[in-house]
């Protein structure tokens, strides 16, 4: 070794420097990120699950059409330290300037820590978790899907014959409960005889139990089925094969139920994503908290399917206009299904009232229990 003209250390130094130069000239390392905006999207599951992840993936697709924006995506990233690695690789290797972490469990500590480590990168998370104690380059965005479930309820209330609606739900947490309540209130608005029966499966993805729950609801007389689970595919397919009508959740399930699909509650993340991209392109700062419903075009309903009756379509369109005008549908006097008054007479809660986020009961007319 000693007869080499240069020492080993020298050789390594030269080689690595050449490597860095080579890599940067090839564009592998991109220190100048001003040219365009690279956005990283992280999904907890597969992008085409007919559910939560698909709703984000649809928005990502729309985002790719925005000039100057490059989108990098990674699917099936668990809510563990794996997401830290994904974020780091998106920032270091792809030069991402904005990260969308779309799953609930990504937020703390992973996204918060990453935001502290990379103060120049913007991080946004799809659940209302950001508080003023968290880094200012982090933030939250969220859509009030309960408003779209309310529209579902209006359409379902006039499309049912048995006046019995079925709801397959994962867990009795407030966002699920407010969707169930909104669905019932929508149905009751147009059909005072309507009831909603809810079956909790206990977890976000249990296909066999979701199918059993759907069958049990239809056996008990429900003729419209909707759900709040991660991937509604099994519920919608099972209901369609039993001849029941369906309302969707999260993304469009219309292709799964050509005969019985009424409409569905969908997120419209592209509104938020495009807004962010636009703000950054103009050199503005992103808001830390961004939440909205129908009036801001953050949620929408799937185009009506064959299951929706003409009256249902008319009533649902009218209800959409009311929701866009922020008309309250949580109106007193309202009781929960145990008989307690939850909204006294004379009080009402308009969309975005913080009260709606704290719902921990099922309203009168819903058969089911939160425990």
């Amino acid at each position, binding site marked *: 070794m000693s007869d080499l003209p240069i020492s080993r250390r020298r050789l390594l130094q030269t080689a690595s420097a050449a490597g860095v130069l080579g890599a940067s000239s090839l564009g592998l390392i991109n220190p100048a990120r001003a040219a365009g905006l690279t956005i990283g999207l992280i999904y907890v*599951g*597969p992008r*085409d*699950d*007919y559910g939560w992840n*698909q709703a984000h993936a649809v928005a990502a697709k729309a985002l790719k059409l925005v000039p100057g924006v490059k989108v990098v995506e990674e*699917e*099936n990233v668990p809510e563990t330290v794996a997401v830290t690695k994904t974020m780091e690789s998106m920032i270091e290797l792809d030069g991402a300037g904005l990260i969308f972490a779309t799953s609930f469990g990504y937020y703390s500590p992973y996204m918060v820590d990453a935001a502290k480590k990379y103060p120049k990168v913007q991080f946004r998370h799809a659940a209302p978790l950001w508080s003023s104690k968290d880094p200012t380059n982090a933030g939250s965005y969220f859509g009030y899907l309960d408003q779209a479930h309310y529209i579902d309820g209006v359409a379902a209330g006039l499309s049912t*014959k*048995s006046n019995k609606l079925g709801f397959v739900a994962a867990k009795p947490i407030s966002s699920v409960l407010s969707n169930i309540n909104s669905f019932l209130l929508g149905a009751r608005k147009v059909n005072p005889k309507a009831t909603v*029966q*809810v*079956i*909790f*499966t*206990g977890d976000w*993805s*249990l*296909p*066999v*139990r*979701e*199918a*059993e*729950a759907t*069958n*049990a*609801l239809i*056996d*008990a*007389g429900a*003729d419209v089925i909707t759900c709040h689970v*991660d*991937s509604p*595919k*099994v519920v919608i*397919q*099972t209901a369609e*094969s*039993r*001849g*029941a009508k369906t309302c969707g959740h999260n993304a469009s399930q219309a*292709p*799964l139920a050509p005969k019985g699909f009424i409409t569905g509650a969908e997120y419209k993340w592209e509104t938020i994503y495009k807004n962010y991209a636009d703000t950054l392109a103009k050199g503005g700062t992103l808001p830390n908290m961004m939440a909205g419903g129908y009036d801001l075009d953050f949620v929408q309903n799937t185009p009506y399917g064959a299951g929706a009756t003409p009256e249902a379509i008319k009533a649902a369109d009218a209800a959409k206009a009311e929701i866009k005008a922020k008309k309250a549908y949580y109106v007193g006097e309202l009781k929960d299904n145990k008989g307690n008054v939850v909204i006294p007479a004379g009080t009402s809660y308009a969309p975005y009232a913080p009260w709606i986020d704290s719902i921990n009961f099922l309203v009168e007319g819903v*058969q*089911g*229990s939160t*425990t």
Partner: protein
Amino acid sequence: MAVTELGWTGVPLAMFAGAIRVSTPFLFVSLGECLTEKSGRVNLGLEGTLVFGAMSAYAIAYLTGSPWLGVLVAGIAGSCFGAIHGFISKLPKVNDVALGIALMMFGTGSAFFLGKSFIQPQAPHLPSIDFGFWTSIPQLKVALQINPLFFVGLAIAIAMSWMFRTTRIGLIVRMTGDSSATALAMGYSVDRVRLLATTVGGFLAGVGGSFLSLYYPGAWNEGLSSGQGLMAVALVIFARWSPMMCFWAALLFGAAGAIGPALQSIGISQGYHFFNAAPYILTLVIMIVSISPKRSLRGAPGELSITR
């Protein structure tokens, strides 16, 4: 749809319907494991085989349009997994339980990897036979739409118990499972018998997986099995290594799984977590009742690494 309110009578009906709908994968996996364990090996990898079978059946049914071809391919894929287990287990100092766990992860992992692009498409479903033509009650009509694979499973259970009891092949399998020394003395290759038994067991588990993705619930996604393959392996011990008992045990587990949703549908919704846990509670209770420190499990093959 003319729907009659069934009220409380709906619960036994739902349990009956659930037993038939949900039991088939349990039945196939437990029959496969029963055969494997009778020959003296434990294959814990059947959960992975089940998931891989579900994925491959769905993919093939979607690509070719023939669900039955999907079932066949799932079986073949399953037998490959079984053969891998059988082959590696015969190498010296290989622990079949540890190998099974490795294969379980390999099976589920590769199914997730290869199945990525098949989550969204809709594959054709397996047909069902309508036994409910005589009734006008819609709930009963639906409960009596039974998939042919259920009857295939029942036929295999009957054939397998007949095989163990009266045929030469059955005797050879039982002998390798009870005492490999005897089997060797009789001139049979213990490894080859076990390799074949594990391969056939894998085939059955793969077919069980195809039922999940092609009939009920009838879609491929990554949460499809949620541990059913593992429960079916436990079910073999509970069924005391008897194929017919596997059949009844599978029915019981299917029925227990239907209790939770059925009770909620008639308005008994308090404590649904408890009812949803019914199958697991049932397993525990039966295990506790039937266990005794004074004797080994009745019917357990003597060569099994877990009972030896």
